[in-house]
């Protein structure tokens, strides 16, 4: 569904990604782990289309409805309309824009793009309420300004709520589990698990294994210095949490 081919990217002339290859098929859950500064967040921003990153090499092919599309040619909002989602590590606060107004605008923009009829405000409220219930979000959420004054846990839940509303095909969730207490982690973890379907794919960027108690991964990748240096199964995540990255990094350096 999404093929990342030999992507290199830099910001302000500094190379961050140095030839990433990753193939994601429908129904799969991938986990990307790696020490700080290895380029994990950059990878998700490059896929989402952040304007600060310059792509120096490679391509990202998105396979949707039997058509292959070059993702890098599209504006960020078009990528989103085509079904790409990015859950932010640090969701941005937008004063003066209400959460509900924003969610409805986003939802309707996507409907319009996909040629589906827009939802009227009342129907949308019901639709939203159902999604919020399963994320344990109170009604007061909708009238608040987007992410403004939200606690860390509320912001992350709000990211998952957006994912639930927009129903994307490929979701990169960048450290959605960080900064959460155990209860919030369970809500977010179960939320993600419920959004996992046969026809979509989820990529979790995380430092911890604990999220994987709720969402079972098919692959675990280790990123280091802008490259994927090892790919394995769920057990690899346990191994890293026990022993750290050192031995994996050494192993990859020896094999070069």
């Amino acid at each position, binding site marked *: 569904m999404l093929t990342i081919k030999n992507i290199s990217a830099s910001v302000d002339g500094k190379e961050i990604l140095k030839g990433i290859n990753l193939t994601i098929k429908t129904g799969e859950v991938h986990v990307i782990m790696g020490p700080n500064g290895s380029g994990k967040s950059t990878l998700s921003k490059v896929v989402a289309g952040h304007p600060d990153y310059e792509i120096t090499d490679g391509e990202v092919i998105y396979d949707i409805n039997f058509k292959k599309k070059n993702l890098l040619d599209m504006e960020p909002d078009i990528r989103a309309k085509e079904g790409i989602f990015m859950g932010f590590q640090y*969701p941005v606060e937008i004063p003066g*824009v209400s959460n509900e107004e924003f969610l409805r605008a986003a*939802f309707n923009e996507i409907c319009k793009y996909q040629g589906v009829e827009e939802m009227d405000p009342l129907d949308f409220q019901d639709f939203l309420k159902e999604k919020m219930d399963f994320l344990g979000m109170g009604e007061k959420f909708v009238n608040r300004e987007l992410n403004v004054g939200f606690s860390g846990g509320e912001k992350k839940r709000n990211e998952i709520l957006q994912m639930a509303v927009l129903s994307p095909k490929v979701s990169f969730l960048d450290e959605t589990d960080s900064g959460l207490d155990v209860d919030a982690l369970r809500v977010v973890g179960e939320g993600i698990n419920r959004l996992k379907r046969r026809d979509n794919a989820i990529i979790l960027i995380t430092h911890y294994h604990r999220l994987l108690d709720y969402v079972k991964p098919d692959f675990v990748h280790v990123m280091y210095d802008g490259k994927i240096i090892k790919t394995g199964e769920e057990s690899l995540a346990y191994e890293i949490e026990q022993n750290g990255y050192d031995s994996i990094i050494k192993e990859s350096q020896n094999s070069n």
Partner: protein
Amino acid sequence: MKLIDRISDFPKYRKNESWKYSDISFLKEKEFQIVQEDHHHFINSDFKKKEFIGDAVVVFIDGVLSIKDSKFHENFTILPLNQAFLRYPERIESSFQIPESDSTFVDNLNRVFSESGVYIESKTSNRSLIQLIFYGENKKIDTPILSSPRVIFFGLENSNCSLLETHISYREDFLSTPVSDIILEKNSTLNYYRVKHEKNGTHLGVTKILQKENSIFNAFLFQGDSPFSRHELSVFLNERYAKTNISAIYASKGNNHVDNQVSVYHQSPNTESEQFFKGLLKDSSTAIFNGKVSVLRDAQQSFSKQLNQNLMLSNRATIYTKPQLEIDADDVKCSHGATSGQINKEELFYLQTRGVSKDVATKMVSKAFADEALNKIEQPLIKNYIEVILNSYFWEV
């Protein structure tokens, strides 16, 4: 008639502080015609339906009071200025006591050319709305029109009402120099709204307010939608406990020029003033905010706050902002500040990753910026009225 033939001392562009960034020398050689009396044009009913939102409505057409088009209400005394001179000479006299502000050019221009004016007295404490419509028709007259209507408004003791000034014109070229003198007596309250959305022409407007003890003046000003537009607001907090609260939005696009001049004079102890001006600038437009707060030596324990924020939606737009404080008293609380900035890139990206296009995201964030000032308008009817004008002018292509 050429202006330069009647007015010799035009303000000096770049040399005069208040006209430093507004060059009006292009008016000097222009031919103007003055409409001298009510020329029997009735405003059509569609316009009335859309624009008449006041309990009382006073209509000026091309600078001339049109009694026939106006609508009266028991809570207000409304008289043509020449009749008021005879009936309430001492009141009219006292309106001349409003001190001169820094820039008297427009005020003088209005005095020289004013053919028509209205006297309004608010007796009510039940918050009625009186509306003043300054209307310019799209009628074929070869020479541009000069209109200089004058308004004298008295808020009597303990009165409480709202005044909405709408400047709207369909003429291709004109100069309007409207002046409103407002006197607020003891314990009176006035909510003042000034909406200027003439599509063409040159607008040089003045509002002066003299506030007596414990009076409250709340203002919301909107300027937009014309090639050259300037408004001067001077507030004199003349007696104790007088309070003023001014919010404003100015929005410029294309090559338009919008100039905001504000002066607040704290002349007595325990007076309070707040200014909150927000600017939205697109394309190659220019805007000016020149805001002065002056606290005289006797005005101890006064409070003043001033903030000007500008959102630059184009890198070709220019803002000149100058918040100023002059304090001669030693026991006061005053703050002021100005900012100008572009839309936060990360905010745009965040919205875009949710499928919202850059244009819509820009609109969303800018509207939120404007809302902060619009939300200061307490009356939903007027808030909606101004919001519709701003949206249709600034956002529809």
